[in-house]
């Protein structure tokens, strides 16, 4: 049933309204992939180190089809503050994604002591304006995972939508 024709902002404040976020700006990810990002981030935080990995999907679509956990190749004493995604792991992920008809469409990494928002370094080094940038913060007991686009230094959040497996 259509809602009252009032300004969208008030409805937006309650969330869930279909006009709240244009569908094109929502990044969909399976619950299993989302969980694997959190598990990887929590495991690396024990070292402590930042976790990183790649996202695969069809270019231009807003669906993450697979995540590829990768190694952090930054110097060991810096891994808690920076990540350098292991390029050999990237090569393997790229091959696997191409075999499945996908592309690498983004990257995830964790912040061990800061919020789930791209750092100045993340923004300055963002390699591709078409990519999705997922940041997982594990600074508090409850992890926070958010996704962004970074275009010409401009950061925009794209809400993550968790999808159930197709069989459910």
């Amino acid at each position, binding site marked *: 049933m259509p809602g009252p024709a009032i300004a969208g902002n008030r409805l937006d404040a309650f969330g869930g309204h279909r006009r709240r976020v244009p569908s094109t700006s929502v990044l969909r990810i399976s619950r299993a992939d989302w969980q694997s990002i959190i598990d990887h981030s929590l495991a690396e935080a024990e070292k402590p180190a930042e976790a990183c990995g790649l996202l695969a999907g069809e270019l231009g679509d807003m669906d993450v089809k697979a995540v590829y956990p990768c190694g952090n190749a930054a110097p060991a004493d810096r891994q808690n503050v920076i990540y350098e995604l292991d*390029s050999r792991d990237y*090569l393997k992920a790229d091959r696997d994604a191409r075999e499945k008809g996908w592309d*690498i469409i983004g990257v995830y990494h964790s912040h061990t002591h800061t919020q789930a928002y791209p750092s100045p*370094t993340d923004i300055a080094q963002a390699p591709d304006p078409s*990519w999705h940038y997922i940041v997982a913060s594990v600074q508090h007991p409850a992890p926070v995972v958010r996704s962004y686009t970074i275009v010409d230094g401009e950061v925009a959040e794209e809400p993550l939508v968790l999808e159930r497996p197709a069989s459910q």
Partner: protein
Amino acid sequence: MPVEVRLPTVLRQHAAGQSSVKANGATVGEVFEDLVRQFPLLANQVITEDGSLHKFVNVYRNDDDVRFLDKLATPVEEADVITILPAVAGG
């Protein structure tokens, strides 16, 4: 002697949207020269103006990072696959 060159998403806009292209050359450097002949917009994206490999790019010949081979002088053969990957890092 054409080899396959696999492009990351960020470079495809300079190569008519293709994810993989064929280029000729006996070395990685020659392959990139041919690549730029075919797609002039790729100039300076992989090779710097002084003729070396761009710092923010990793290039593989099959399974090997060419930085640990002979860099741009690394020989290539027809069945080889050259993969260009952006360096991915942050803080």
